[in-house]
């Protein structure tokens, strides 16, 4: 059990949740996630721990409301008790490599932050490239700036930083400054795929963090399996971080769509119900 201490909207669709769960906070390492279940009829979803405070006994989750469960999560009020299990997954391998480029796209910035922070603490030179569709969707800028030596922003619409994709910025960075010692990329699968394609000819070690479908998060269901070279791995226990040059991204993207119809239906039903309730409330007042 964990108790919701506070929640805060940090961007359209993005909410920061601070949860009290001391044993998890104490054990959390960068790169790990928790399984969250918000009520008896709910589904278990994996969410990366964006930050933790061992002394306060809290963990922070930054969640984009894209499906039924994450939308419903937005309705939780401080004091709510939810089920949280973790910290799960293999922590990031943190060491001093030299220059480390941290690339975050959209919701991927949240899981990127604790890794960038850990790599910074290991005395790496951190160059962060953060991208989003538009300015307000480039989240956690302040936090990322605090753990980065250099910042590059990109937006699809040019409303902030340079217009274009994170891969454009990476390409220019490699051309102008030579190859960095490491690249860590977290974001939509398609973004990670193109980052990995770009670094492959330069042989730059590239780490990606995968978000696949899971139920238990402890290696029991195998729903999260991913192709890694000639092997099959479980994202929940072998990952979530893998060598980006080995990941079969096309398979990952297909598998992510397993329940696309059901997800759509659940979200539509939730939005309808929610809208009805909101309208009833409006009539009363």
């Amino acid at each position, binding site marked *: 059990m964990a108790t919701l201490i506070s929640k805060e909207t940090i961007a359209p669709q993005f909410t920061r949740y601070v949860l009290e769960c001391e044993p998890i906070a104490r054990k959390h390492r960068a790169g790990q996630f928790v399984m969250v279940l918000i009520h008896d009829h709910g589904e278990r979803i994996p969410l990366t721990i964006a930050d933790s405070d061992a002394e306060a006994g809290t963990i922070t989750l930054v969640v984009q409301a894209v499906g039924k469960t994450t939308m419903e999560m937005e309705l939780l009020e401080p004091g709510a008790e939810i089920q949280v299990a973790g910290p799960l997954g293999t922590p990031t391998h943190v060491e001093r490599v030299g220059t480390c480029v941290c690339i975050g796209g959209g919701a991927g910035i949240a899981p990127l932050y604790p890794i960038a922070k850990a790599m910074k603490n290991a005395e790496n030179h951190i160059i962060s490239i953060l991208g989003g569709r538009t300015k307000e969707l480039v989240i956690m800028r302040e936090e990322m700036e605090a753990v980065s030596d250099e910042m590059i922003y990109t937006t699809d619409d040019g409303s902030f930083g340079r217009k274009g994709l994170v891969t454009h910025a990476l390409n220019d960075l490699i051309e102008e400054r030579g190859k960095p010692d490491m690249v860590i990329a977290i974001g939509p699968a398609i973004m990670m795929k193109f980052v990995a394609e770009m670094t492959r000819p330069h042989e730059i070690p590239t780490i990606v963090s995968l978000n696949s479908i899971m139920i238990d998060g*402890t290696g*029991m269901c*195998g*729903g999260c399996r991913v192709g890694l070279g000639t092997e099959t791995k479980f994202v929940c226990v072998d990952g979530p971080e893998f060598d980006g040059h080995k990941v079969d991204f096309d398979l990952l993207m*297909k598998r992510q769509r397993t329940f696309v119809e059901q997800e759509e239906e659940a979200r539509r039903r939730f939005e309808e119900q929610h809208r009805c309730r909101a309208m009833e409330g409006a009539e009363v007042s």
Partner: protein
Amino acid sequence: MAEKLKPAERLKIPRHPMPAQDPVERRSNFSEVALGYTPEMAMEEAQRCLECKKPHCIDGCPVGIDIPAFIVEVREGRFDKALEIIKQTNTLPAICGRVCPQEDQCEQVCVVGNKYKPVAIGRLERFVADIELTGGTVSMPAAAEKTGYKVAIIGSGPAGLACAAELARMGHDVTIFEALHKPGGVLVYGIPEFRLPKSIVQYEIDNLKKMGVEIRCNYVIGKIATVRELMEEWGYDAVFIGTGAGLPYFMGIPGENYIGVLSANEFLTRVNLMKGYNFPEYDTPVQVGRRVAVVGSGNVAMDCLRTAMRLGSEHVICLYRRTRAESPARLEELEHAEEEGIDFRWLTSPVEVLGNDDGMVTGVRVIKMELGEPDASGRRRPVPIEGSEYEIEVDEVIMAIGQGPNPLVTQTTEGLELNRWGNIVADEETMATSIPGVFAGGDIVTGAATVILAMGAGKKAACGIDGFLRKKREAVPGASAAAV
């Protein structure tokens, strides 16, 4: 008092069949299939027991229930007394009466079975246990005086529950750590409602709580704390590892990662634990293929086949590389599956899963097998028949070919001796592992086996742990943990 019959008369009574839901009806519901004996049926079935002077059945029971003694009480209609006898050695009879492979245990060695059908011991056990569930007197085992020792149990499956019950009865403080959000392990995520109603598991777990056992869900040991930390920082005097066989095996054939290929664990967990059959009332979706192939023929495979049928699949196919005779499933499950219309393809093994450009399963290519020489397991080895390959159109493939040990605990416990399959090496008598104070039992030791064997191991381990704690006390003269 029931009329006492002569042995010859008793043998004339035919074994009572188990009343069951009609196969056509039950194919579309999740209610329990086997309905249980009435008191009259049970008392008459009990007459069939010959009360052997040297009964074999007790030895055939992994937990050594005094079977003739409880059956006599059933015959006389003293059901509460019968329950008391069972509960002396088996804390979870309502579960065992339903899921034990009795035909390989007590009933296999029943003397009546030499010439006739054996006494239906399992059905009688279930009958007696159900009396309690439906409002009979609850016989709580008397607990010994508190010892003050703390024992941590990792995993709330059959091994953990049995171990916890025994330890609590011995007066130790017991905490069970469960990784999932509900306790029960395979009894909850794996075995379907129609075979083992979840209310029964919940009832037994509530009983444990009444005995003072604390259950902490969402605690993934190996991650939130290691075994060593449980002992050195969390204050536990001993630890029992009962983490089961939770790691799904896949076949390693081409196409296995297509959408629509899933492990039995995933399929059953979505349905049983997460109630996926009630989507969208419950949020977890489950794939329901129009044509489904399940690979394997053990109890888990039967559960998958029959679950798929109940979810509305039109055609459900079992692919097994040996024959019906070698099928490891419990006979009753196999018969029930046959009655429900499962298409069994014996001596058939998949060689490739076929899919389309979107990555969705479209079929499975299989090869026919024949039985050759016996292998290490004593069963005749299936050998592929060259040129016998053919394709079956399916849109879902469920792999039910076995599970291995989940490594989350074993890999984070330094100094814990494992065998080459990753199972924990434990002493056969005490279930002690290579680390003092750490015990293990159930599937994590034996590899995937049965509920009752896991419970038997949990009980043994409880005695081993009790012995370890007593020695610990003797080592510190005059100091019981309670006095500290």
